[in-house]
């Protein structure tokens, strides 16, 4: 079974590059630039992992994270340019599995994803 990853970021160019990278590494990747749509897609597509931006127009990533708080899947990896320690604490409290600072180190992201996949079995 192929691991399905949902990419949520208001920068479409980033989404595409990340999607291609993940695809190249054997994952099934889908994307959206909108947090509300992301919630719909999570219901419809049942992704295993979500990479979630925080600062987005409309619903922001933190709100979306709160909605997914009690669910075991998908595992959420927060990807943000904001790097304040207090934010990190809040995000972890809201159930995020990991926090990655932008610009993203691809190797680091892939390592985190591999870890989650291993956990999820």
């Amino acid at each position: 079974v192929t691991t399905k990853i949902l990419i949520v970021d208001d920068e479409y160019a980033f989404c595409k590059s990340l999607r291609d990278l993940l695809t190249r590494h054997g994952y099934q990747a889908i994307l959206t630039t909108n947090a509300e749509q992301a919630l719909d897609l999570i219901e419809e597509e049942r992704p295993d992992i979500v990479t979630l931006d925080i600062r987005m127009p409309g619903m922001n990533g933190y709100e979306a994270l709160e909605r997914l708080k009690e669910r075991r899947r998908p595992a959420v990896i927060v990807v943000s340019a904001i790097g304040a320690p207090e934010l990190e604490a809040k995000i972890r409290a809201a159930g995020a599995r990991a926090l990655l600072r932008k610009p993203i180190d691809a190797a680091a992201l892939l390592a985190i994803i591999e870890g989650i996949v291993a956990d999820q079995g």
Partner: protein
Amino acid sequence: MLSVSVVRSGNGEPLYFVSQIEDITTRKVMDEELRKRDEILSMAQRMADLGSWEHDPATGAMRWSDQLYRIAGYEPGEIAPTMENFFGLLHPRDAAAVRRETEECARRGVPFDREFRIVRKDGAERVIHAQSQRYPGGKGGQMGGIAQDITERKELSQSYRKALDNLLAAQEYALLGNWEWDAATGAVRWSEQIYRNLGYEVGEVAPGLETIMDRIHPDDRARFMEGMERSMRGHAPFDEEVRVFRHDTGELRYLSDRGMAMVDERGRVERIVGTSQDVTAIRLHEQALRESEARYRSVVDNVGIGVSLISPKMEILALNKQMRDWFPHVDVGEKPICYRAFNTPPRDTICSYCPTHKTLEDGQTHEAVTETPAGEATLNYRVVSTPIRDDGGNVVAAIEMVEDITVRQRAEEALRRHNKELNRMMEELKKAQALLVRSEKLASIGTLSAGVAHEILNPLNIIAMTTQLMQSAPDLPAGMADRLEEVMTQIRRATKITDNLRMFAHLHKDENKFVNIPEIFDRTATLIEHDLNLDNIFIDKRFDPRAPGVYADEDKIAQVFLNLLTNARDALKGEAGGVIAVSSKAQDGDLVITFSDSGPGVPSHIREKIFDPFFTTKEPGEGTGLGLSIVHSIVETHRGTIRVESEPGGGSTFVITLPVGGRETEGARE
């Protein structure tokens, strides 16, 4: 035997002599006696300055006594004793009347008695009193008379009259009347001025005690009567001042009545004589003077400075209230010497600075400021002396004014001190303002930078992701992998710059607490130790264990240490066995922390600039130019200072001074 008795005039001068002759022997003896009698008479006439003459109209014979010649200014017998010669002596103004009356006397026996003037041989004018009459028993109109030179008496009388007139005029001018009370009859006699003093026309009322009592103020009547009765009993001179209401105007006047009892040989009071003077003007003047003096005294007493009147002998003549308060023991009545009375212990000599002594000597105003120890403090007095002169311009006293200027001087001193303090605060304010301007600038840079950084990070993220996608391509063209890695290096560099910029945005939030400097340092050092070890650099820590902690933001102090360690590491790059020496110690209430490295040092011409934002000496790509600027900014927000000491080739030492204890750091700002 001859007996002579003298008949005297009313004022006691001899007028003529009466003699009795007793025929005791022969005619010859009688003649002898007659001759003697003439001699005696002549002598008596001479003594009394009394001349006599006899005239017999029938024979025309006339006899002048020797003294009559002398009265006329001639030697006896010098001219013929004739009527015509007598008339020739008369003053032209009196001649006609005297001649006429003399003839009346001769012809009809009308006695002649008058004063007239004669002109003496030497031209002197004399006043003569002459009396003549026909002899009662004489036949043919025989007559005789006496003449006396009364010039002196007349002059005396006239000058007496004049003196009396003057006295009366003076009494009138002085509103002084005199009165007399007769004890036997109770009769009272007043001079005219008494009437006028009571407001009556002269003679308008009967003089008497009742009349006076009617006019006296009711409150003064009993006293007046008592005084009068005491005098009547002869025990005391009468001296009462009473108020009277004038009869004519009803005006209240002051009368000073004085009198003295005259007693007879048995000590009984015969009469009281006295004066009564209207002293209203004097009393009103005195009253005005008293009021004026009271006013001035009040001013002088309440002027808040000590005022003394000092005589040329340095005696204290008067003191105002302030001086009496300062020197309660000084009794002006004893005329104490000022330098004895005003000094404790008393001095025996004039005070060396004494301005009053100078004023009394040269008549000028002098001034001095004295210092008087009073316990621990020193009181300062300003003494000013001015002369008082009499009408002739002579200095008769000095007014010495003493002012306690201690309070004023202290106030001036306090003012100077406050001024100085104010200036100091102004300086601090200026410095704080400069700091504020700088901080505001940094804060603006921080805010701007944070915004820019965030916006830059997103495109950087896209570039980074795309680059990494390309790097993961299996069929990457030759040379492309290196190029893509270079892109990634530049992305990381740009990311580091934005991270530093964002640091500014967080600098101005304070999280102050009491912090332990060595602990913060150790924690910070662990972050960089790995790098340092790689570069073969060692840290030499010398924290004074007794150095106090400071009230600071722990994270920011950590940032300072990190930046300084990084800075030192960069300075030591390429040197084998570099050492970073760190120390702390207490100094003048501050905590002093130093970071020294043995690097190339900071050239003097850039020492001023190294704390400026974006200033860097590093190669492009190696530094952001913000590290030391952030350090400087953090130290300043903690009210500390930082400076760099450096000898060319001798390394650099950063010296941080932080205030110890709970002093407030600069207010937190977003």
